[in-house]
């Protein structure tokens, strides 16, 4: 076994030093009846050549030849090879949480840079070191809002990602906080009149997607104004963070907390995980934030350095009174996003965002020519809902061509307008005009 360096002589010498006769003797503190008397029932060991072959076999049973037209919370984007090559620096990817700052300055400075990117893109003051994903970040934002306001009702737009809302419901159930869902209107945006009615003195926060699940740039400023009048916080949820290169930052539109995922930066789809959840808020709430936070300081010689700070919020110190139980987060995924954002930079991010928006409009034009119009008229970023007649049938048919066609809305919104035909599709820098045309053609074809 190449990962076990022990020779029989090593084992002998070590047992002698310990003063026992056998390895089995080291386990004498485990009562005999509790020991396993048989070999584990696992598949037999493989050498590296066989291992690679076996996992290539499994990978080969997944069809990824075309970039998917499904987004819905996981976005196909170009990851420059340099991102992954830097990520494989062993000093970075084989390190643990930076508990010893003197020998973790690389990780710590990178976290500080991540926090800065998140703060800049959301136009909020502070960010933490990352969350598990966008859905749990949303749930943690709701719990934080309840702590800050002392209120226990969470109001969420139905146009927020349905999986995020389900996770929110799971988290809130244990705490007995109430979840109120506000419908969306015919334009695909949150129904503001319904929101106005739902928000009141018990509301801890209002949660709005930005862009929302339908790809639409939702009415965040209006929703934030309604929340503010009621003394509630506003939480914006962004699953497609490339949009923040084009759209006004949530913090500039009234969001008090911005959450979501930066998967779109530097992180592959990987069947939905891992990806870096993000969490940003205003300075005033920093001590109520969940998760690790990195801060700048100086060393004994006055040189700038970084440490994990404000740790008294966390589970290892405050235990049952901690702001969250989160410990390990998505550090390496956040590093991937940080590297990608560094490469893109000011102009690259703006270009990427415009390119995505432009590709989505090419897709819309092609789909309209193919007889499939959009379901919602609201403004979009790079994702939109088309009426394709029978969405599940289109998904099944395109699957035979190796194309992931999109997310049929009826799976989550059986009562939505034109639900049967509604297919949520994304177009990014990976969907060139030829592929877009092919997709529209294939969608139109009668079964």
């Amino acid at each position, binding site marked *: *076994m190449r*990962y076990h360096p022990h020779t029989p002589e090593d084992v002998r010498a070590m047992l002698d*030093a310990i003063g026992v006769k056998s*390895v089995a003797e080291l386990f004498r*503190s485990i009562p005999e009846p509790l020991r*396993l008397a048989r070999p584990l*029932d*696992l598949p037999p*060991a493989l050498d590296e050549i066989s*291992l*690679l072959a076996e*996992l290539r*076999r*499994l*990978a080969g*049973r*997944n069809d990824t030849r075309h970039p998917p037209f499904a987004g819905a919370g996981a976005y196909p984007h170009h990851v420059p090879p*340099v991102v992954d090559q830097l990520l494989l620096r062993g000093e970075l990817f084989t*390190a643990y949480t930076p508990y010893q700052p003197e*020998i*973790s300055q690389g*990780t710590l400075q*990178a976290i500080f840079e991540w926090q800065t990117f998140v703060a800049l893109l959301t136009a909020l003051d502070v960010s933490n070191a990352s969350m*598990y994903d*966008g859905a749990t970040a949303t749930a943690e934002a709701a719990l934080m809002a309840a702590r800050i306001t002392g209120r226990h009702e969470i109001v969420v737009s139905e146009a927020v990602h349905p999986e995020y809302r389900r*996770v929110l*419901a799971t988290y809130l159930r*244990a*705490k007995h906080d109430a979840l109120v869902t506000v419908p969306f209107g015919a334009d695909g945006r949150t129904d503001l009149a319904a929101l106005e009615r739902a928000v009141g003195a018990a509301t801890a926060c209002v949660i709005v997607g930005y862009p929302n699940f339908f790809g639409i740039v939702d009415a965040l400023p209006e929703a934030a104004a309604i929340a503010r009048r009621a003394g509630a916080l506003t939480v914006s949820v962004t699953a497609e963070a490339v949009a923040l290169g*084009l*759209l006004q930052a949530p913090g500039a539109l009234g969001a008090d907390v911005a959450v979501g995922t930066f998967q779109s930066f530097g992180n592959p*789809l*990987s*069947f939905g*995980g891992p990806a870096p959840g993000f969490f940003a808020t205003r300075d005033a709430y920093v001590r109520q934030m969940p998760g690790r936070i990195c*801060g*700048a*300081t100086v*060393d004994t010689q006055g*040189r700038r*350095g970084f440490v994990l700070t*404000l740790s008294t919020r966390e*589970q*290892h110190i405050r235990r049952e009174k901690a702001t969250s*139980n*989160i410990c390990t*987060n*998505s*550090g*390496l995924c956040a590093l991937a996003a*940080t590297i990608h954002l560094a490469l*893109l*930079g000011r*102009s*690259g991010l*703006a270009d*990427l965002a415009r*390119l995505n*928006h432009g590709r989505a409009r090419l897709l819309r034009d092609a789909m309209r020519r193919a007889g499939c119009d959009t379901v919602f008229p609201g403004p979009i970023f790079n994702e939109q809902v088309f009426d394709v007649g029978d969405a599940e049938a289109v998904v099944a048919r395109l*699957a035979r061509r190796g194309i992931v066609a999109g997310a049929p809305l009826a799976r989550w919104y059986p009562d939505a307008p034109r639900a049967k035909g509604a297919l949520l599709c994304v177009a990014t820098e990976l969907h060139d005009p030829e592929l877009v045309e092919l997709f529209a053609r294939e969608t139109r074809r009668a079964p």
Partner: protein
Amino acid sequence: MTDPAGRKPSTERGDASAASADGATRGLVHEEPLLFEQGARGRTGASLPPAPAGLDPAQEIPAALLRPSLEGLPELSELEVVRHFTRLSTWNHGIDTGFYPLGSCTMKYNPRSSEALARLPGFADLHPLAPPELAQGALELMHQLERALSEIAGFDATTLAPAAGAHGELCGLMIVRAWHASRGNPRKKILVPDTAHGTNPASSALNGYAVVQLASGPDGRLTPEAVRAAMDEDVAAIMITNPNTLGIFEGHVAEIAAIVHARGGLVYGDGANMNALLGVARPGDMGFDVMQYNLHKTFATPHGGGGPGSGPVAVKAALAPFLPLPVVVKEGATYRLVTDARERPQTIGRLREFWGNFGMFVRAWALLREYGPEGVRATGELAVLNANYLRARLRDTFHLPYEADSLHEVVFDDQRQQASGVSTMDVAKALIDHGFHPPTIYFPLVVHGALMIEPTETESKETLDGFVAAMREIAERARTDPEALRAAPLLPFRGRLDETRAARKPVLRWRPGMKVE
């Protein structure tokens, strides 16, 4: 930072005054400013096709919702970005750099074949909503990993959904709550030993449970008497880490489980220390009803300086209906994800978006396939051998607060060094100057000045001998020259950092003109 002409400092060192007080680059250790403190207007490391002509976003999106500028973002060439992160990496200690005996974190070698395999396009480029017929390989892998994890810990079913160990605890306790609720009363309390990780009480509280702390016995183990005294019909579960954070097997676990079960409670296993038991003993055979794994510990998925983790939860059959969604099912020769609660009416629901940290599943499965049953068992045995070897060779030098047998880790303290005014912190920092990552310090809380050492099975005898020599030398220095130890570490890129200052005047992000002095 940006001046009116739009120039940013463009020397390699950037703004030295911002980087450090005496920001000198020495030898091959480079000072490196923040991304935001270098570069020049107009640079980029991106290469993208042009946006389609004539499609201005302002035609569709209201002006108030368009971002006027992305000021503040860096402007760097690809080489500048490569140098930046390469330099940062050299300030870090990873497993690849050297020994990393961080107790309870199981810092073992991260196999490179696992890394290569997780990057296969068939895995990395797979969309979570791909129709199942396009994702059979991923689903088969998940199904096999679920079964293997159930077998290794002795349970009937496993969910891969939780994103990390603490998330797994939350999941497991939600299952506990749902099971009790289905029987009419969710109960109110969770029993947590004083040696537990802080995540245990925090996860309990997040689940709406009150925490009752149990004192461990004089030999470092939980006693049946303590559990019996605390156990009543309001207790939903006891959380036990086995072996515990002292590295000691909870020998009374079966009796304790019986006490808890007799009063209708459940037994939760924190699987953080599962490395000690691999192939040797199974929590499911000791009375545990539910347990979370930490794949980044036991199955060597890289921790990456803070995650991602993966915290699968294994349960006995009675709890299986409550598992979160999705669940992978095999129907004939094909696999499918159950995502609809109507198929699983008792499920606790969704715990995160999509299906779990799939990239970590690939890595863990690759390692398990290479190990096979013998390799899994050898892992547990050699992890315990290494810890006991360190214990035997260091116990004359450092005080051992608990005499009970150690499994995969050993906890010393600083009692013998206190006379010369040297603390565990000083020992830890001195180890850095010897090229080692310090052990976990000041945990578990029941040991004053704890030094918790977990070597793992992937370390050679020579590495352990080197560590022993360093620890002995430090102990000797503590007697002869304690002042020198208190100044450690002297050799890394930065000396001891002022954590008080960081917390009093938090600077949590870069802003133009940022100065930290």
